[in-house]
């Protein structure tokens, strides 16, 4: 089994042509996020939203490795996680726009979504111990299932992360932490917020770890498939660190990075990489998904406002 030591995914020369389904999903998320930024500019959204531009491949790659019984805990940057699980842009957009058909009636909004075994919340680090509790339940009643938690690099500043990992390892809880390390937390570069490394911290607790540099969904799956199976078989937690570029702003219009930094991020974007490598198939799919999302947007935008489904929760009750 994967041990508490550094193990790096095999570097491939370049990405293979993605399966149609993967590409569809990647592009669905991409255009969904782009469309949100447009809606913001048009003054059609309020509050805040964090797009996952550049990080779409993580949930897309992990998706097929998950079963229905697995839980997914997401964070503020969770649209891709949701779409990869449910392929439901209507429900999510309605949630963000507060329209009928919203997954959570517009109460939760972009950062707070619960649907079946998927849950996101907006306080960084909070979901890790919750995932450990969930994993304990699965271990007892549904062995072989696991809880997957997405967190960012900046979230490793929070003490909760360590409290949770310690318990997960002590008690052998089937939790997988997918770290989307985009090298930045809001405006703060990783070097200014993280001493040492995620790998060092994780292995220091005796926890299994793997780093993934590739943005190729097939390669990623190949690299982590066995590790994830090990979690199911042994109930030992696992941390996967994905090196990803943040191609968009933190939320909206708040990117303070230099032109070079942005250019570097874009050069590592799966969208660029895939687009350059398979220009034709890619462009067709790209156009198709752009159109699909714009239909969804028009549809949702035309809907009436959402209502509290559970009348007892409404404050007037």
């Amino acid at each position, binding site marked *: 089994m994967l041990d508490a030591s550094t193990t790096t995914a095999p570097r491939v020369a370049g990405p293979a042509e993605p399966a149609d389904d993967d590409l569809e999903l990647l592009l669905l998320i991409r255009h969904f996020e782009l469309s949100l930024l447009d809606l913001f500019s048009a003054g059609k959204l309020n509050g805040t939203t964090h797009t996952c531009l550049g990080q779409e491949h993580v949930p897309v790659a992990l998706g097929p490795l998950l079963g229905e019984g697995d839980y997914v805990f997401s964070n503020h940057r969770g649209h891709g996680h949701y779409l990869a699980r449910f392929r439901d842009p209507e429900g999510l957009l309605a949630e963000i726009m507060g329209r009928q058909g919203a997954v959570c009636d517009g109460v*939760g909004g972009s950062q707070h979504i619960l649907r079946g075994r998927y849950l996101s919340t907006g306080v960084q680090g909070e979901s890790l*111990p*919750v995932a*450990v*509790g969930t994993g304990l*339940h699965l271990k007892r009643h549904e062995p072989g299932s696991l809880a997957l938690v997405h967190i960012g690099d900046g979230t490793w500043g929070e003490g909760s992360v360590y409290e949770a990992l310690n318990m997960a390892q002590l008690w052998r809880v089937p939790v997988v932490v997918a770290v989307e390390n985009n090298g930045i937390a809001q405006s703060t570069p990783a070097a200014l917020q993280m001493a040492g490394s995620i790998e060092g911290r994780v292995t220091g607790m005796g926890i299994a770890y793997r780093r993934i540099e590739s943005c190729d969904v097939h390669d990623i799956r190949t690299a982590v498939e066995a590790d994830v199976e090990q979690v199911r078989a042994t109930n030992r937690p696992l941390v996967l660190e994905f090196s990803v570029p943040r191609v968009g702003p933190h939320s909206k219009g708040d990117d303070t990075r230099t032109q070079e930094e942005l250019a570097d991020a874009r050069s590592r974007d799966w969208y660029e990489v895939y687009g350059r490598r398979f220009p034709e198939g890619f462009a067709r799919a790209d156009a198709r998904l752009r159109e699909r999302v714009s239909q969804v947007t028009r549809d949702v935008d035309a809907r009436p406002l959402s209502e509290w489904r559970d009348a007892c929760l409404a404050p007037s009750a």
Partner: protein
Amino acid sequence: MPRSERVVENLNAALHRVFAEDESAYLIGEDLADPYGGAFKVGKGLSTKYPGRVLSTPLSESGFVGVANGLALTGNTVFAEIMFGDFAFLAFDQLCNFAAKSVSMYGSRQELRMVVRCPVGGHRGYGPTHSQAVQKHFMGVPNLALYELTPFHDSADVFAEMVGRGEPCIHFEDKTLYGTRRWTEGTDDLFEFGFAGARREYGTAQPRVGSGDADCVIIATGGTAPLALQAARKLFLEAETVCRLVVPSRLYPLDLSPVEGMLARARRIVVVEEGVAGGTWGADVAQEIYERMWESLSGRVRLVHSDSSVIPSAAHLEREVLVQAEDIEKTVREALAR
């Protein structure tokens, strides 16, 4: 007064009952494993009988309340124990931003069966970081209900009620009660003990002879109930003042209806708690009383609480700060003097 087993035994039995009846029951917190059974022994015997369902955790208050949240979200019944209530501040985020909000922030009601037990209060010389009555800080969080251990209530009933709510609850337990004996229905030489409310929401005690309206109703939290009773006895014996003692099992949200009639007929109302001054539970109770019965009130509601101070370690200094029976007695006398 009629006396039965010790409060800590009642609590322990209540937990054993939950565990026996509910296969999904968990207890999580520090040093819970036998033979230790938790710092105040409330969990004794559970880890031996139900080894997989008692989780003795590392020192990680925020973390283990988070784990409790996860267990509750997946449909289990979870009791968490914070060793000293002061440390509940370490888990404030998991309690208020996660547990309570999860019930409603996803649009449809999410059921969470979860009770966080917090030993609180002073009089034991544990010093400033181990002695606070922290109840008031958790008031007014939607879907977070607050209960307090009382000498009246059977903890088995209270636990069942909390679990039945399907939303996170905090159960505050005044450490000074653990070793004392429970009060049961019936009479002692002077007082009659009983309950008000269809679900026994309030424990009550009143002089056996004073069948008419009370001079004063004293609403007191569980931890201060023995002090309030002591004051009431003294007032009755020395001044023939009839005080009725009313002790709620649930602090928040508060429903005064079961005792509204009694309150409306009282000449004076005094509210007692151990927490220090400022933003008190009593202010909230008073506010509720003013709102409900402004027209019938014959005087203002008086609050008794501890001084605005840290809780000192040395017994003689601690005494000065914390509410004592004499403070209650004095307040009742003053209230009635006007």
